């Protein structure tokens, strides 16, 4: 067996850059709303992106999301945020304990599935659901408030969508001179993982809720909502049959709204698709349209049909780093 270091081909580098691009918007919002401090969040995310870029080539791409979010989620800035500030629409976040807040943000801001979120938070499935239940806003009676949860999720999503491109560009600026960077780097770098895990679990223990509470709260929410929905439907059905025959053209009535069928001729494409249709017509009328589908191949053959060099094979002409060569020969022995 030969241990060949994973080659960083331009495709792999492109994939890494595409991955970071796909994740940075969500990651910045999660970090920012977790810390309550945009500057600290940016600083943290830049460090995480750098750390991730250094290890990504050694990982299968399938593990990238989980590793990236774990690197981010384990940062001290996110695990033990200092007092931060939240916009008024998201003030509820500031009142939560850090860990439930992170669980909520990873879900509604990071759009992470349960498998990745549990790894990032270092909890089992039950623990994760408990954190989410803790993060769920309560109504006046202390019951989980589904509408408030949804509103919170929408606010977070809105931030992800509306994040100015300038903020993202700032992430990609080369960081300040290394000398400046050195000191803060050690201060906001998270302590080793196991140490932190044990302290945080110790801290969670005293005010941890009984294990059955999360699922029970959820079950009650489901039952209440189901009952409400059934009741509403029943009431709607009665209201509908109680009324006389519907006027002509009316399909149904739902409270103050009268639902009418549109005449077929009224269904027209929107103005946007009209413009689209005329652009399409111009394209189809172009004499070069027939060669469009394979224009890439024709351009390639016009250039003589060169094939890319296979970068996955080590080439004797390219000097290998000395360390890598030694490692390879050592592994061969």
């Amino acid at each position, binding site marked *: 067996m030969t241990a060949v270091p994973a080659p960083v081909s*331009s*495709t792999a*580098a*492109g994939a*890494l*850059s595409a991955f*970071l*691009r796909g994740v940075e918007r969500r990651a910045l919002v999660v970090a920012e709303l977790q810390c309550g401090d945009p500057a600290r969040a940016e600083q943290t995310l830049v460090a995480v*992106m*750098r750390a991730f*870029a250094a290890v990504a080539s050694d990982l299968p791409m399938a593990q990238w999301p989980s590793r990236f979010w774990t690197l981010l989620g384990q940062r001290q800035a996110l695990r033990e945020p200092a007092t931060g500030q939240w916009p008024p629409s998201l003030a509820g976040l500031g009142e939560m304990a850090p860990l439930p807040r992170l669980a909520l943000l990873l*879900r509604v*801001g990071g*759009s992470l599935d349960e498998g990745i979120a549990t790894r990032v938070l270092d909890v089992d499935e039950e623990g994760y659901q408990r954190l*989410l*239940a803790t993060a*769920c806003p309560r109504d006046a009676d202390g019951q*989980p408030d*589904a509408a408030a*949860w*949804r509103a919170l*999720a929408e606010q977070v*999503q809105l931030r992800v969508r509306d994040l100015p491109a300038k903020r993202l560009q700032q992430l*990609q*600026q*080369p960081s300040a001179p290394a000398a400046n960077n050195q000191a803060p780097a050690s201060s906001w770098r998270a302590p080793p993982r196991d140490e932190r895990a044990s302290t945080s679990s110790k801290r969670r223990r005293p005010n941890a809720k009984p294990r059955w509470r999360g699922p029970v709260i*959820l079950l009650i929410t*489901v039952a209440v*909502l*189901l009952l409400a*929905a059934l009741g*509403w*439907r029943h009431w709607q059905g009665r209201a509908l049959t109680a009324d006389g025959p519907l006027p002509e053209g009316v399909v149904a009535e*739902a409270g103050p709204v009268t639902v009418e069928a549109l005449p077929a001729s009224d269904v027209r494409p929107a103005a946007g698709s009209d413009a*689209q*249709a005329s*652009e*399409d*017509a111009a*394209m*189809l*009328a*172009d004499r*070069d*349209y027939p*060669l*469009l*589908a*394979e*224009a*890439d*191949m*024709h*351009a*390639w*053959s*016009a*250039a003589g*049909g060169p094939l*890319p060099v296979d970068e996955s094979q080590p080439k004797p002409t390219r000097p290998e780093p000395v360390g890598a060569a030694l490692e390879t020969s050592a592994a061969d022995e």
Partner: protein
Amino acid sequence: MNKLVFAGLLLALPLSLAAAPQSLNVPLPAPSAASPAPSAAAAFAQLDPAQQRQRRSDYAAWRALPEGERERIRQAAARFAALPADQQQRLRVQFQAQDQAFREGWRLGPQLGAEFPKLHGLFGFVPPQQRDAVLTVLRQLSPSQLAQLALVAQRTPPQERDSVRSAFLAVPAAERDTWLKRQAGQ
């Protein structure tokens, strides 16, 4: 009604609240039948929405090519059409077997397409607002400048790509040689 209620109920459940989908694929209506090239229009209408979008973006790329590049492609297409079917098929297979990023590079024309695999790191993912500027500058470069830029692209670590690209775009044409030499030497 029933479905609406149920969907509302699902949405209301905290744990079923997954994030909104990243993008929605709304099928586009087929273009009106009264277009000047009936056979092309009919064939286009047969394509699924994703293929139609692809064709539109192919056309946008085609229109962005300088006329000289378009002419080279037309000639190549004519030569290709003259080949026997089995040779056409062989070329198609050979091209299709290549990596997608490699194939997409050729949409930039024969000249840039040849350099694209090497430039991909720096110019493979460009913000929409930089796209036109990038293409304009790349088309102005001489072959030796392109070769140096390829070196720069290969030596730039991923996290610095955006800043290096922006810096390159900001360099006046007369100073590009100096900039490229300095940057490639780093």
